[in-house]
């Protein structure tokens, strides 16, 4: 039998491949699923417009991406982490422990977070942060007292909203979007309804009260979505009363299925987000391992290409897809070409 020959050839192939694998020639990116579409557009264009191979962009969420980014320096680690939030102190620390000390932070633009429901569903057209907090906060203020969230329908706390069952699909905790949702919607709503004040006067410290504000009810009225926006869309498709949290670009690609609600009276668009009127937006970032520049071919070029005026500027393919261009893009370009690391430029 040729079993021996097969084994021998298999081992030979593995050995040849392993030696050929010594040098990686492509940029390896991972992280936020919000940044992924933009990164994939840039990756494709980078491959088409330069002599470097097309970078590989993986998804997985901001936290997962930064975790992999901080695993260490070397060809078997990723070069760039995409994040839909800024890197946290403890992540920088974790990075440093593994030898990843020089990190270049690149802000690529802004993304709006919108609240959308089924096109033909109930008339969810205008929300305030307080409405969202009342709908899904774990503890809310009712008649001057903090109680477990008693509401089943939107009209119970705001007569202007439809008498429809509460069903919200919010990003799971591994998404960077969740943090913005908590900061700009839940916390705002908590303060606006007076729940935070009531908690603090009941003897909670400010930090504890803030944490309590961010607690989301666990009785099934609010569902954490750990997958992509497509999963949220599928849930909305199946639930007439469902309200989902989406990125602006995703919503704009699916306007035939979704209708968007205003937040604080402002309807989301690239203009209102760029001007800062629309309250729920956040910057998008990617982080570059400086130690890999010069080792991985094309890494710096990729970063520079990403933030070039033609790409990330107004009218470029990214803003055409839904990214809100950063007015301070020129500073970012300068920082990238000078390889300014975090800490050194600040």
């Amino acid at each position: 039998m040729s079993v021996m020959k097969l084994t021998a050839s298999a081992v030979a192939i593995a050995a040849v491949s392993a030696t050929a694998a010594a040098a990686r020639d492509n940029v390896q990116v991972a992280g936020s699923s919000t940044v992924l579409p933009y990164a994939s557009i840039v990756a494709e264009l980078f491959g088409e417009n330069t002599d470097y191979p097309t970078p590989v962009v993986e998804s997985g969420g901001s936290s997962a991406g930064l975790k992999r980014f901080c695993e260490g320096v070397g060809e078997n680690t990723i070069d760039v982490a995409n994040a839909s939030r800024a890197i946290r102190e403890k992540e920088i620390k974790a990075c440093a422990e593994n030898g990843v000390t020089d990190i270049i932070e690149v802000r690529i633009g802004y993304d709006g977070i919108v609240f959308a429901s089924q096109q033909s569903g109930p008339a969810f057209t205008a929300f305030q942060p307080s409405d969202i907090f009342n709908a899904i906060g774990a503890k809310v203020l009712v008649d001057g007292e903090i109680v477990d969230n008693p509401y089943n329908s939107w009209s119970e706390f705001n007569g202007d909203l439809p008498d429809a069952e509460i069903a919200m699909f919010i990003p799971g905790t591994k998404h960077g979007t969740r943090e913005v949702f908590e900061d700009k919607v839940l916390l705002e709503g908590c303060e606006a309804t007076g729940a935070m004040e009531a908690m603090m006067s009941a003897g909670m410290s400010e930090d504890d009260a803030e944490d309590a504000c961010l607690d989301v009810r666990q009785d099934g009225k609010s569902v954490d979505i750990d997958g992509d926006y497509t999963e949220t869309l599928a849930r909305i498709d199946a639930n007439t009363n469902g309200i989902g949290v989406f990125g602006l670009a995703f919503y704009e690609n699916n306007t035939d299925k979704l209708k968007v609600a205003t937040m604080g009276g402002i309807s989301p668009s690239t203009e209102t987000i760029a001007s800062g009127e629309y309250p729920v937006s956040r910057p998008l970032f990617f982080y570059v391992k400086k130690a890999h520049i010069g080792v991985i071919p094309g890494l710096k070029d990729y970063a520079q290409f990403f933030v070039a005026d033609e790409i990330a500027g107004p009218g470029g393919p990214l803003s055409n897809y839904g990214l809100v261009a950063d007015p301070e893009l020129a500073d970012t370009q300068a920082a990238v070409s000078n390889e300014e690391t975090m800490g050194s430029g600040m």
Partner: protein
Amino acid sequence: MTDAATNPGAATPRKSSLLTLDDRTRRRNASEARFKAYGITAIAVALFFLIVLLFSILRSGLPAYTTTVADVEFTVTQAQYEEAESQLFKTKAYEQLFIAQLQDQLTESGMQVEFDAAAIERIMGKVGGNIREFYQANPDQLGQPVSFELSSSSRVDGYYKGRVTREGLQESRFLQLSDLDLVDALAEAGIIRQAFNWNFITGADSGVDNPGGAGIGASVVGSFFMMLVVLFLALPIGVAASIYLEEFAPKNRWTDLIEVNISNLAAVPSIVFGILGLAVFIQFMHLPQSAPLVGGLVLTLMTLPTIIISTRASLKAVPPSIRDAALGVGASKMQAVFHHVLPLAMPGILTGTIIGLAQALGETAPLLLIGMVGFVARGYPDGIAAGFVDPNSAMPAQIYTWAARADVAFYEKAWGGIIILLLFLMTMNIIAIILRRRFERRW
């Protein structure tokens, strides 16, 4: 025991006859009929779901195989080429050249519909990449008119496939109602037409704003190299392990332990192998990320137990008399196994291997962790060694990636990819069935 048998003294004579059924027999017959009905219902339900599944796959997936293209003839001069190549965003420059020329051509031909450059940009897909690629490969064509077949934007394609309707159209910067008038006019002029989407079968993945350029070809190649690794590692290792365990190993506590563990491994969720692969192959052995080699190694681990179990079953199925006869005429144990037992067990081993490969082919979860899921658009590897180590995706990973994208056009691509994946799986299963039918021997 029956009443009649336990009361021999009873005066009443047996009333039953062979010709008329008594109550008990009727009840037994009825229960048999009921059981058959359950079985038929179960099969009917399974068939119903199968048909629904196949129908929905075909209905959603077949549109991916056609595309809307525009036939345009235009010229790029040497000066324009150099000008475009000197820019950072070269493909955009080619796109602008193309749009300007098409606009002039349409104005000359006396198009009845109002339009502007922005409308053409919305209607056409990302054409710059194709144009640049062409002139890079054929610089001698510069300055001469060349006819291009370029794909339209995904929304215009959707207009022809019924995804986008005039009534349901929400005007956006992606497409406006007036653009559809231009599309209709262009179609009437024979510039826009439907064509078979070869690019879908041969191409690589594309960016999220360019569904028209997405193809599954590169990931088929990725899957192919992974399957090569699985085949050349899992088959010899699996067969060697099972032959040793079945024919040579002493039966003791150790071999029992190994046996139990192999059976357990067969039931381990595949994602676990992905985590193992990340830790061992990438972080410890420093093999490249997103490489079919690593994917193949991970899937080998996953497939090994399946192959070992099926190989041992087919070795067991060879009657001991064959071995005894071989040993009786003076063959060594190894000769008996390799000359007589193994050839007889081969059909079963190959069947098990193919089923194991088919299982590995459809697996996504372990690939998630080794970087094969995501945007991997390297195109075709140049050479065999590059095929193993260059980043690539795999078919199920590609389908998974497409299904998560915002533009519904990618959803259609995902279904189209499922059709190709199913074709591969069916082919492999049919080969397994043929092997079994043709070579299996019964004793």
